[in-house]
Every structure is written in C-alpha cells, then in structure tokens.
C-alpha cells in the first residue's frame, strides 16, 4: 500500500460510506436539527418582537396614564381654585349682607330713636304748653297785692314746674 497511489477499493468503500452517512445523517440528524433550530430561532425572534411591541404599548400606556394623571391634577387644582373663589364670594356676600343688614338695623333704630325723641319733644311741648296755660291761668286767677309777691310767686311756680 503506497502513500500517493489512491487504492481503487478504498475509493469504492469511501464513496459508499460517505453516501450512506450523508443520506442517513440528512434524514435522521440534519433535517430534524436544522428544522428545530429554525423553529427555535423564529420562535425567539417572534418573542422578541412581541416583547418589543408590548414594551412600546406599555410606554404608550404609561404616557397616557401620566397624561390622565396630569389632567386629573389640573382639574383638581381648578376645582379647588373654583371652590375657594366660591367660598370667598359667599363669605364676602354674607359679609356685605350682614353689613347692609346692620346698617339697615342701625338706620331703623336711629329712625325709631328720632321718632321717640320727636314724640317726647312733642309731649314736652304739650306738657310745657299745658303747664304754661295752667300757670298762666293760676297767675291770672290770683290777684296779688304787690308786685314783689307776684314775682315771687311766679318764680316759685317756675321752680315747681321743672321741665322734667
């Protein structure tokens, strides 16, 4: 058996063996292995794509969520502001009303006081008139001998009739 001379028998057997090995491995090994690898790769690919999609969806949802939150916050502060304004308005109105009422009451009281004062004054005037009339009657009715005594009397009458 020489080194550089290809033996025909060995070529024959090698051909046969490689053909058989090729056919057997193709059918029983390479096909299932390569198919499985392909299936797994496409599966992983799909999973990655799905994950990516879900991630973008999530981020979208998150931003939507944040928007909603921000809106809600704005709305809340708006409502609070409005409520404060309403409260202030109500309080102010109430104050105004109270002030008005108080003023009205004061005015009425003043008016009443005036009325009473007037009535009192009228009464005083009437009383004074009556008194003057009475006194005049009395003075006129009494005939005094002297002037001094007359004057004295008048004064005593006057003293007696204190205006109040």
């Amino acid at each position: 058996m020489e080194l550089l001379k290809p033996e025909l028998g060995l070529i024959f057997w090698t051909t046969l063996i490689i053909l058989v090995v090729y056919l057997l491995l193709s059918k029983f090994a390479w096909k299932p292995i390569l198919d499985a690898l392909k299936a797994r790769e496409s599966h992983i690919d799909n999973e990655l794509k799905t994950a990516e999609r879900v991630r973008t969806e999530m981020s979208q949802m998150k931003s939507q969520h944040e928007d909603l939150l921000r809106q809600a916050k704005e709305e809340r502060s708006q409502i609070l502001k409005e409520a404060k304004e309403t409260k202030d308005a109500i309080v102010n109105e109430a104050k105004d009303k109270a002030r008005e009422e108080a003023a009205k009451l004061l005015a009425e009281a003043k008016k009443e006081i005036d009325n009473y004062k007037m009535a009192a004054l009228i009464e005083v005037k009437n009383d004074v008139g009556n008194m003057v009339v009475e006194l005049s009657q009395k003075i006129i009715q009494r005939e005094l001998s002297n002037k001094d005594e007359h004057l004295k009397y008048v004064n005593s009458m006057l003293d007696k009739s204190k205006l109040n």
Partner: protein
Amino acid sequence: MPYKSLTNKFLYLFIAFMAFAFSSVQAGHPEHPAHMEEKHADTPKTDEKYDAGSVIMHHITDSHEWEIYSKGHTHISLPLPVILYNIEHGLSVFMFSVFEHGHANYNGYYLDKKHHIQSLDGSAFYDLSITKNVLAMLVSSLILFLLFRSVAKRYQANPLQAPSGMQNLFEVLIIFVRDEIVKPMLKENTYRFLPYLLTVFFFIWINNLLGLLPSAANVTGNIAVTVTLALFTFFITMFNSSGHYWHHLLTAPGVPMGVKPILILVEVLSIFTKPFALLIRLFANMTAGHLIVLSFLSLIFIFGEMSAIAGYGISLFSLAFSVFIYCLELLVAVLQAYIFTNLSALFISEVLPHDNHHGEHAH
C-alpha cells in the same frame, strides 16, 4: 480566506515527498521489515536495525490487518476480510490471515515481498477489501450517526427548549458551520447544500481526531479518501453549475481578445485544480502531522540503538516535541475540516446562478 501560508504547505509537501522517497528506497530493499521479523523469529535477535522509514510508512498507510500491539517479535493484529473480484475467476472473500504473513497462498492469490496481494496466474483483479481504513471509517461513521441521532432526538423531543449538554456542544458547531462557513458563501442556497457540507465537516473532523489515537487508522491522510471527498465536491459543483457560470468561464467577458484564450485555458484548468487542491491539502496536512509525530518518536529508537543513554536522553526532547505537535494536530484536525468545508462551499457558490462574481475574479 483561511488558506495556510504557502510556505507551510510547501514544507508539508516537501516532508511528505521526502518521506515517500525515503520509503521507496526502503521498499527497494530486498527484505520487507515485516518479512524480516518473521525470518528472524526463530533466531535470536542481534543485528536487527530499527528502520524508521518503513515503520512510519507502515503506520500511515492502509493495511489488510489492524495492528494493535507490537513488541519485538510479538505482533497482535486483527486480520481483516479481503474481498477480491477477478474478471476470470470471479469473487473471492477470505480473511487476510490465510496468507500467514506471506508464507501461504490462498485461492490463487499470494503476498508479494511488499505484502501486496497478487494473483498467481497474473490475471487482473479488483481489491475491494475491508481494509483498516474502511473499518475505521465504518466505526467513525457509526459514532457520527449515533452521536447526531441522539442529538437530533433531543431536538425532536422539544424543539423550543434551551440546549444542554451534548446537544449544546453540537449546536454550537452546527450553527458555526451554518452561519460562519455556509451562509456567507451560499446565502439563499444555504439549506440546499448544508446537509452535505455538515456531513463533510463532521466526517473529516471525526476521522482526523480518531486518526490521532494510537494504532488508529490514518483515514484522512490517505489519498484515496481525500480523492473521494474532493470528487464529491467536484461532482456537486458540476451538477449544480449554471449556464451563466459556463458562459462566463468560456467567453471571459470584458477581457482583451489576445488574453482571452489564455484566461479561458486557466479557467478550464481551475475546474480541476480546485478539487485537486482540496484533496492534496487535506492529505498532506494530515499525513505530515502523523509523519512528524512518528519521526520524533523514531528518533528515540534510532538513538537508543547507538546507546541506551542517548535513547533515554533524546526521549525527553522527542516526547516534548511530539506532544507539542500532537496538540497542534488537534487544532489542525478541526482546521482542515473547516478549510475543506469552507472551500467546498466557496466552489459551489461560484457555479450557482445568483452568485456575484467577485469570488471568481479573486482567483
């Protein structure tokens, strides 16, 4: 492209040819070593010289028996079946041991001095024996089949499961062949040729590795095996060659008229030189590795014949170097499988219709 450097290749070839020349000289010697040992079996050994050339050749060439153990005159070897087809006498099948190492004739055949089977009447015959290399290939093919069948079963059981253990190891290799060797060359045709290229890759690799075992057969360092492998690639390229490829090759468009005939000649030659390069590269690389390891080990015995001390002294050096070369050979085993597969993929891609022609021009 992962070509080995040219000088390296020439060095290997040089060593291979030197060894070949050396062995021819040895073979020209009237007594074959095996013969010699037989002859000396009955006389006490005295002047028997260690013949490195024939020992090495004996180890790297094919044989009709599988030598397991050999020390002095004790040879334990497994005789293998011999299958001969004679055009005149028909088929004869017998075990190699019937020749009794050249002492006996059988069925009109005898062993000549070089231990080649010859017919007594000089009639032509075909030797289709199950030789050492054939048996080694059968064993490695069986290992290959059982290995990948068990891996494939794991995939079939649950294709979406993450790979583990053996499956994981081979998945890496299969994906390497698919994505790093075949896909860049064949692109959309990848899955058409992938089964062949995977088979070739693992077939060469496992035979390279098993060939490194002690007393194993040097299958991929046998030129008949590499010729067959290269022929497979050659026929695949021929059967898949497109009209466009032949048109491009035989008309050499865009080349001046004067240069055309030369270029066409070169291109036509390249059809045959490509597979030739494939077969020589694998053969030379694997044979060279075996040669170097065996040569280093032979040094021990050559020096040992001079004096025992020299033998022991040189053994340290020899062992260190042969272990180093052995490790290198482990790398070469996968590298040569890779190169063969890669170049096969390249040659196939060149003949396919939808290939860009950069590859062709690169040559």
